[in-house]
């Protein structure tokens, strides 16, 4: 991570996922493409000024697709997503995880030790696939290298790689290896003790044997900023020390900027545990989901952001990736609303260099149209905040 970027006041970035375009999903699944799909590819290619997008349109007209062509289509999808983020004016970008199945499934399906069990609901009509750990865990093959190498070759902006964290992988998995001898006739306290010890073994094995070698492979390819995604981190409030231990075991001694992403939790729970996460240079945290949509920079106007004081007081002074876009709603936050959320945070932190500006979480639950509008308004809102703060709007 360059020193300049690390300290750029009000730096903007996306969190991770974007929806996959219809043409990408259908083509990959071997389903017929409609004129609407082709028009979607053409319109976004033109709008985002994707280089040579006509080649994609031509390719899409030639179904069925070979394995190599499907890989090519995934890369096109990556390029489109990257250009969407660059086109929205973000300082730091990635590809909306277009080449991954999903943040959890992608990780476990490239690992040894897991078996898929099926899908469950996350919320509304959103589902995710769960696996069970059944054997010793190891990295089968570094699973972000190919996408990262490709993105390095096509990105104009800085890259930040989202990597699913050890705690979340464990939390979203079933355990069929570490804690298997449950007998309900045993005292419940004994069962709980065994479960806790088994859980620690499980999480730390993922950190050491899966995440860490994957991070090392990315750093070997030149990765400078890696975001360890931990949406499950606060799921078990009595395991926050374990979450911190797993982060530290994953990144300790490695040479890159590491950050983490947390969302949809009672963030008060993270304190004081994360005081020990000194290698975490940024916490990207979702707040907009809990906030009012009214304008204003007072405590009363910003009920979703009160907890940021605790992040400001962390002794190792990390940046805060301030979630300002509700990713579960099509509501388009105005630039003025983004501005006020940012100004509130800057006032609390007293230092705009410690505030980065982001959506609450990955935008994959929104259409590209909505995601693009939200992101453009986010960068417009940051420009308004810079103006208000008298900051220069530096060229990327």
């Amino acid at each position, binding site marked *: 991570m360059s020193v300049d970027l690390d300290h750029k006041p009000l730096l903007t970035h996306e969190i991770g996922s974007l929806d996959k375009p219809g043409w990408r999903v259908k083509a990959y699944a071997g389903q017929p493409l409609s004129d609407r799909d082709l028009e979607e590819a053409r319109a976004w290619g033109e709008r985002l000024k994707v280089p040579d997008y006509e080649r994609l349109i031509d390719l899409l007209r030639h179904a069925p697709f070979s394995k190599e062509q499907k890989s090519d289509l995934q890369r096109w999808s990556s390029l489109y997503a990257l250009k969407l983020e660059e086109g929205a004016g973000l300082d730091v970008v990635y590809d909306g995880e277009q080449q991954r199945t999903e943040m959890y499934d992608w990780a476990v399906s490239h690992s040894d030790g897991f078996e898929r069990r099926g899908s469950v609901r996350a919320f509304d009509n959103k589902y995710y696939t769960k696996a069970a750990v059944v054997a010793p865990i190891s990295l089968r093959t570094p699973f972000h290298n190919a996408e990262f190498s490709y993105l390095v070759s096509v990105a104009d902006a800085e890259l930040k790689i989202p990597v699913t964290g050890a705690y979340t992988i464990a939390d979203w998995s079933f355990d069929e290896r570490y804690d298997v001898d449950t007998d*309900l006739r045993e005292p419940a306290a004994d069962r709980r003790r065994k479960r806790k010890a088994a859980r620690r073994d499980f999480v730390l094995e993922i950190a050491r044997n899966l995440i860490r070698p994957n991070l090392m492979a990315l750093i070997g390819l030149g990765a400078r900023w890696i975001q360890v995604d931990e949406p499950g981190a606060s799921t078990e409030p009595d395991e926050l020390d374990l979450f911190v231990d797993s982060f530290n075991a994953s990144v300790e001694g490695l040479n890159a900027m590491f950050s983490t992403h947390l969302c949809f939790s009672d963030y008060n729970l993270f304190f004081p545990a994360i005081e020990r996460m000194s290698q975490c240079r940024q916490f990207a945290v979702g707040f907009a989901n809990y906030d009012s949509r009214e304008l204003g920079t007072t405590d009363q106007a910003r009920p979703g952001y009160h907890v940021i004081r605790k992040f400001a007081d962390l002794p190792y002074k990390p940046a805060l990736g301030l979630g300002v876009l509700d990713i579960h709603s099509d509501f388009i936050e105005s630039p003025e609303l983004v501005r006020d959320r940012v100004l509130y945070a800057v006032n609390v932190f007293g230092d705009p260099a410690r505030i980065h500006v982001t959506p609450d979480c990955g935008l994959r639950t929104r259409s590209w149209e909505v995601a693009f509008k939200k992101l453009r308004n986010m960068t417009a809102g940051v420009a308004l905040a810079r103006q208000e703060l008298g900051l220069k709007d530096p060229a990327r």
Partner: protein
Amino acid sequence: MASTRGLDRGRVNADAVEAAFAEDLAAFVRLQQKSGLDVFSDGLLRWQDIFRPLVDALGAAKPESLVRWFDTNTFFREPELSGALAGVNHADGLLPDASVPRPRVATLPSPFMFSRAARTDRDRNQLMVDLAGKVLRPVVDAAVAAGCQLVHLEDPWIGYFGIESKDWAPLREALELLHRDLRATLAFHVYFGDAGPHVDQLRRLPVDAIGVDLVETDVNELGSGWDKGLVAGVIDGRSSMLESLENTVEVARHLADTVRPRNLYLSSNCELAFLPTVVAEQKVQRLGEAAKRVKQLVSV
């Protein structure tokens, strides 16, 4: 799943989703029949969370905020229940489908949990009593009229977060509103936590049966000589490991012998929505096998 996901993305039409729901429900009913279950559920297959159809029926504001469902990776839309509470104005989507065999179970949020999980500017205990009288009771009556002999109130809140001592009396008041003159069995099921510390208070609630999560609760803390039924959560709805039949039967026998509830119901410790369908099906079958074996042993 594929249909509802496709519907959201405009790739599947509503008729296809309806057909998929009907197919899934029919399969779930067949599974329950094959497993020998005594009371039949529609699995709340259409419910996106435990509050959503009730909030719709209330005509309350569309819930926006997503909140984590206790310590799971599942989220619910926080009901917005500020201001005066209107009664439910219809029971659409709240009752088991006509294809579900009788006797049926109606599963609903407990008024305590509902009042705590909602966003509100009101006193939560008053909200709880209002929810019981104006929202849940009309739905319970409609469910009983539709063939539900068991009304199952889910309360993970008490198990997970606990309850203040001052809140037991309003809870009893709320449950009394649901239990009075009810021509069905009313069960109050505490899960996602240890029911042990609450057993004495739970046994004093005006309901017919108390449910406990035995993954979290010590069987030896349940006491003995119950004058209520016990819904014993012996199947772990959060683990993909299939329970041993022998172990499950032994636990059930132990409960029958020591707790001596008025009726013993074998159940999962929580909803099965946290399990992939194929795993949940195995658990339902195991539940049926265990119940069958226990019945044989008890009848000997």
